[in-house]
């Protein structure tokens, strides 16, 4: 048994030490908003926040999260920046298939939390680890700028 703090709650779960946070979330706790895309830190679909930092949950073992706070897409509506990002995503109508979007929103929220007015270059740097096969990139960029404006 291992105790993880997920979205503000301590949760006891039966997961081996080497199990990536992604699979603990998806297959043990059944929080499926966080997605699997590559399993090797290449696509960003599995992005969650660990103490506010965007991490790739597919390559981070559960033991690395002990004593820290895991935040997932399911909690973004309770986060001020997360709310603004989700509202901007809706205003710009970003999503297509939607599969990458939890990870995109988690990455964008982490970016805007640390950088209130990201430039296009900042967005390139922060978001290039998140693949969208549907090519929603122009709308993601527009939505990040829109969220930054709303938060200003």
């Amino acid at each position: 048994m291992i105790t993880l703090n997920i979205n503000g709650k301590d949760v006891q779960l039966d997961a081996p030490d080497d199990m990536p946070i992604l699979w603990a979330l998806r297959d043990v706790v059944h929080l499926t908003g966080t997605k699997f895309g590559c399993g090797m830190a290449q696509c960003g679909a599995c992005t969650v926040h660990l103490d506010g930092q965007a991490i790739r949950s597919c390559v981070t073992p559960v033991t690395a999260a002990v004593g820290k706070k895991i935040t997932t897409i399911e909690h973004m509506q309770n986060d001020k920046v997360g709310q603004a990002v989700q509202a901007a995503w809706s205003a710009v109508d970003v999503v297509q298939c939607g599969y990458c979007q939890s990870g995109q929103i988690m990455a964008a929220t982490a970016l805007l939390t640390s950088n209130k007015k990201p430039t296009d270059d900042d967005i390139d740097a922060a978001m290039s680890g998140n693949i969208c096969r549907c090519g929603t990139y122009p709308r993601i960029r527009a939505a990040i700028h829109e969220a930054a404006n709303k938060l200003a």
Partner: protein
Amino acid sequence: MNSPLNISRRTFIKATALAVGGLVIAFSIPNAKRFLLPGISDANASEEASKLPTPNAFLRVGTDNTITVMLAHSEMGQSIWTTLPMLIAEELDADWSKIKVMHAPAAPEYIHTAYGIQITGGSSTTWSEFDRYRQAGALTRALLVNAAAKKLGVAAESIKTENGFAISGDKKISYGDLAEAAAKLETPKAVTLKEPKDWKIIGKATKRLDGPEKINGTAIFGQDVHFDGLMTAMVARSPVFGGSVKSFDASAAKKIKGVHQVVQVPTGVAVIADNYWAAKQGRDALKVEWNLGPNAGLDSKALVSEYRKMAATQGLPAAKAGDIKTAASKATKIIEAEYVLPYLAHSPMEPLNCSVRISQDSCEIWTGTQMQGTDQQAAAKILGLKPEQVKIHTLFLGGGFGRRANPAADFVSEAVQVAKAAGVPVKTVWSREDDVKGGYYRPMYLHQAKIAVDAKGLPVAWEHTAVGQSIMLGTPFEAFQIKDGVDATSVEGVADSPYIKGTPNHLVSLHTPKTGVPVLWWRSVGHSHSAFVMESLVDELAHAAGKDSLEYRRALLNDHPRHLATLNLAAEKASWGKPLPKGVFRGIAVHESFGSFVTQVAEVSVNKGEVKVHRMVCAIDCGLSVNPDSLKAQMESCISFGLGAAMQSEITFKDGMVEQSNFHDYKVMRMADMPKVEVYIVQNTEKMGGVGEPGLPPVAPAVTNAVFAATGKRIRTLPIGNQLA
């Protein structure tokens, strides 16, 4: 459009009371030709199906005023979750905020109106459903109006409908309050559809209905399916296509905590476990000896040489006119070129997965699929059931791009085999590596062209030979797509090219090698290679003639107004011919596919051999655009998908094995690579075409034509990769 449609002649309609209250409208098409897999009988034909109960419906009006629209097609990003309901809501005068959407089950009612099988593909959903969904809306409205007339004791003609209400003078009754009474009425024999001038919803940019759940993480994809007792499986498959299991040792795999069973299935060895992590570790620990089979020597370089050798001889004719030899002998100049395009994986963001629960006399399947029709038949065949005993729950697809529409039903069949062998409900999941290495690729193609031009630089003889695998061979579409040995999709965009048709002497021929690589339609199918070849060749001709790329195309496309309209619109918006920032160059390409016409203009710079695309200007003519914003989104999507393939993606073989494995070596577009995109729509009332694919074909040639403008180097092999380094 304004004449009453006699629905009863074209379609079988029934309106019935919902067991839970409300009104159901169901359609079926008794005369539609169905495609059936060998061994599947048509016992479950439409007559039978018309007796099916409530789920087989297009539309439900609930007593709580909700309007539930059933989608005969799958939502995979293209936004039909919104577009098809728009068609119903328009005719129904529905309250848009009360619309709910569901994927339909696999059933004969939902077979494609043109393709004869339940499928989402060919950029066809909106045009193929434009009448059927509007009719469903209009018919429901008529029933509700009749119910209101009866209730109020007034003539039906005096009743207006608006925003979910039937209105007569100062009296208003909600659709929900009329639903049960409407269900008891006789179905009207005919309905009149609205005139386009009266449309309030069709043609208006409309927000996606699936937006909220895809933003807050609650949307359920196949991968997210979970119920008690559902196990996770991963399958070890042959590293070479066509290989088989010689022997395996599961002892180490079975020692992994959470692994329950290791079973052999036709495609390999499956490890069945509590969760993905255990299944993956179990599979890593598995030792399998393979019979590699006949493809163990497959090698991409050798394959190109082999295809080149084939291209040296004439293939089966696909288009022919005049006499190329005589014309060529009189020509001023002959231009010869060879183009090569690689195998490509679709790599949708959601890796393939399929959950299966089998019981005595039924099977339930949960997956994201584009082709419920063949999936259902394939599962029935494996289990010895009737198709109607196989229930398919379609979840949101985390991308499809053609990969999830497989006539061979590969990932569904395998998952059924795994669940059957395991004897428990199982979700079979693919890793990204499984996806990249798993086949069903866009086939590799080699094209050679020999074009004779006259003194004005215009083509007078065009000899064109294409070499590549057939996608349609062995599928239910074979009879309809392969004529005299020529798969129409292998040469689409070439054999019917306006450039070739406009050249008085031409010969297009095709070689169809039986290379042992599973192939499949990849977003835009044959156009994904043919447009690159044709639009590059035309650029070569323009350059050889000393003409501007746009002017030269205008001259050749003089009799093709829809091509011309997009060409002119994109050129104007991109300021064609006007100066650009230093180091930036333009390229242009136009192509017709899936009934739509698209021009792309690329602005590109090349620095130390690295290509940077700064801006793409796109103009599309797809006839009527039902939702202009989702049309724009599809163009953005096509540009991203097309640029990835143009710049970096390729699947290659060495010693029979795929050399790529994940996104680090099967490279796709990322945020920093994405140019600015502008999309312009040619407004007209022409026949409707598709939008999910037609934006893609002209992307690569627009970029490589710009690269030529920048460097003088003609890119004839994709991807561009490091060819300029």
